[in-house]
């Protein structure tokens, strides 16, 4: 089943030549063979067998009328709530937490017939770019197990890349779906902010978080996105069809490339793959033009103010009172202090403290207030550039997958996000598609390129992604 798409599986399921039970068996075989070293999964769900069985029965009855994801083995990042399943966010503070309800995205996937294979590893509370920050041990890249799969949705990416699921769901706050997709040779999608409900996602940066698919094709990503999207009374930041102006899909696009952004820090190997992709698009009749978006270069600085600020307030709820870990103390206050000291890992503590600082009186204007103003200016800058071009293109990451332990200081890991955070800060949709490989130490490592569209331009971004991959 390795690298099969949902569309290919669907055809076989409807014909009956290969059933959801076969698919789950093959997925489990791949997991048994590879997951010992890859560690993509935190838990495999026992009820997947029954779901696959039922799905197989339904195909016999319903054929092509069956729901679109019926019987598809799908992996779920473990910061998305599935009723009755442990949802740990890869943190000791939630090690034994069992979700009491389904996230909206889970309810929608369930309705569409998906079989949930298991929950996947992530950087603790989705804070990281390598999945080395998990309290339950790192995930490794199936293409080269000495390298990281990216993060924070590294478990979801590795699960699909090793054939341990046909698709997976992740969350993207600053690149956490797109970057691991790029490192693992997959398609990764970050929707327009508000297109997908955040109800039932363990919050990290509420003004940035979106759930998105990791898949083997752009069509698969689009299929899943169209199932999980939609406004939701449980998330008041969800958008409707009327929120933004309609964005058209075209035969050929005028694509902007901010070359000023690609001067420093971009590896030559990634640059070559990126430039080759642009040449192919040009040959196919698309127009490639230079654009200037100077504020985008400041995005990472603004992001590492806004995000920790939101983290510090979102994670205040983990206090050992209502759920999760509680460490006994002499009084309630000391229990808060001990529980959070014991339950949170180093990176989570760092971001909480950083967020506490940028929000504290006296520093608020210089940091958080300023970053929010920069963010508003970035939105204006993008509006202007999208009046001239249909989409923007950038590499997804500055380098291909790096070795475990290679980036030990936090700032060097943060720089991984440089090309992905602008889409989160401004709320526009972005996709990473696998555009080629580069040879490092005799291993072919995948490289991703990123297409960014205007607000509500999700369909256009998928269309451009399909054109790049020839789908």
């Amino acid at each position: 089943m390795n690298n099969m798409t949902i569309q290919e599986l669907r055809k076989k399921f409807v014909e009956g030549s290969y059933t959801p039970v076969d698919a789950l068996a093959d997925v489990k075989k791949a997991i048994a063979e590879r997951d010992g070293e890859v560690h993509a999964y935190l838990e495999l769900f026992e009820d997947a067998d029954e779901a696959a069985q039922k799905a197989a029965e339904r195909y016999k009855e319903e054929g092509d009328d069956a729901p679109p994801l019926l019987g598809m083995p799908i992996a779920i990042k473990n910061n998305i709530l599935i009723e009755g399943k442990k949802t740990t966010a890869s943190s000791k503070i939630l090690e034994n937490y069992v979700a009491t309800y389904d996230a909206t995205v889970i309810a929608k996937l369930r309705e569409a017939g998906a079989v949930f294979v298991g929950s996947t590893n992530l950087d603790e509370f989705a804070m990281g770019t390598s999945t080395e920050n998990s309290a339950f041990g790192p995930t490794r890249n199936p293409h080269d197990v000495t390298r990281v799969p990216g993060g924070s949705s590294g478990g979801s990416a590795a699960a699909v890349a090793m054939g341990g699921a046909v698709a997976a769901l992740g969350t993207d706050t600053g690149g956490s779906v797109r970057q691991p997709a790029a490192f693992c040779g997959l398609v990764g999608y970050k929707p327009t902010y508000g297109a997908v409900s955040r109800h039932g996602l363990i919050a990290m940066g509420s003004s940035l978080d979106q759930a998105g698919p990791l898949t083997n094709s752009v069509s698969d990503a689009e299929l899943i996105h169209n199932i999980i999207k939609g406004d939701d009374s449980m998330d008041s930041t969800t958008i409707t069809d009327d929120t933004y102006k309609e964005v058209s899909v075209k035969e050929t696009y005028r694509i902007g490339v901010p070359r000023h952004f690609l001067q420093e820090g971009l590896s030559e190997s990634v640059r070559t793959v990126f430039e080759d992709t642009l040449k192919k698009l040009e040959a196919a009749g698309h127009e490639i033009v230079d654009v200037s978006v100077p504020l985008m270069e400041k995005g990472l600085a603004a992001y590492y103010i806004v995000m920790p600020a939101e983290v510090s307030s979102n994670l205040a709820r983990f206090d050992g009172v209502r759920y999760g870990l509680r460490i006994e103390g002499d009084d309630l206050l000391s229990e808060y202090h001990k529980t959070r000291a014991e339950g949170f890992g180093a990176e989570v503590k760092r971001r909480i403290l950083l967020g506490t600082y940028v929000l504290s009186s006296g520093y608020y204007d210089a940091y958080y207030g300023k970053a929010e103003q920069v963010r508003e200016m970035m939105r204006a800058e993008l509006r202007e550039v999208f009046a001239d071009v249909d989409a923007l293109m950038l590499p997804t990451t500055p380098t291909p997958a790096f070795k475990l332990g290679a980036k030990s200081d936090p700032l060097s890991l943060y720089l991984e996000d440089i090309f992905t955070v602008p889409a989160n800060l401004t709320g526009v949709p972005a996709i990473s598609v696998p555009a080629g490989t580069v040879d490092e130490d005799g291993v072919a490592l995948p490289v991703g390129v990123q297409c960014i569209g205007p607000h509500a331009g999700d369909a256009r971004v998928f269309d451009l992604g399909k054109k790049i991959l020839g789908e």
Partner: protein
Amino acid sequence: MKREDIEHLATLARIDLKDEEVASLTDSITSILGYVSDVNAITTEEKPKEVGALYNVMREDEETHEPGQYTEAILNEAPKREGQYIQVKKILGDNE
């Protein structure tokens, strides 16, 4: 950023820190703040706040589910409970 600053932030954030954590956080947070201070080089204009494309929405104040429908499931997740209550340590001292 000095050690005392980190210790103060940790108190505000309700996290006990070990000595070695204070040392490493002092270094890393100083370096991160150096990087993010880049935003101060950007001239921003003070504009009156406007309602954006997204704004807060309130739902009607009405019953959304049967009383007690979720109580057991939610209380079962509490580290300590007594009947229908979540149990916590005493907040006020004996003489207060």
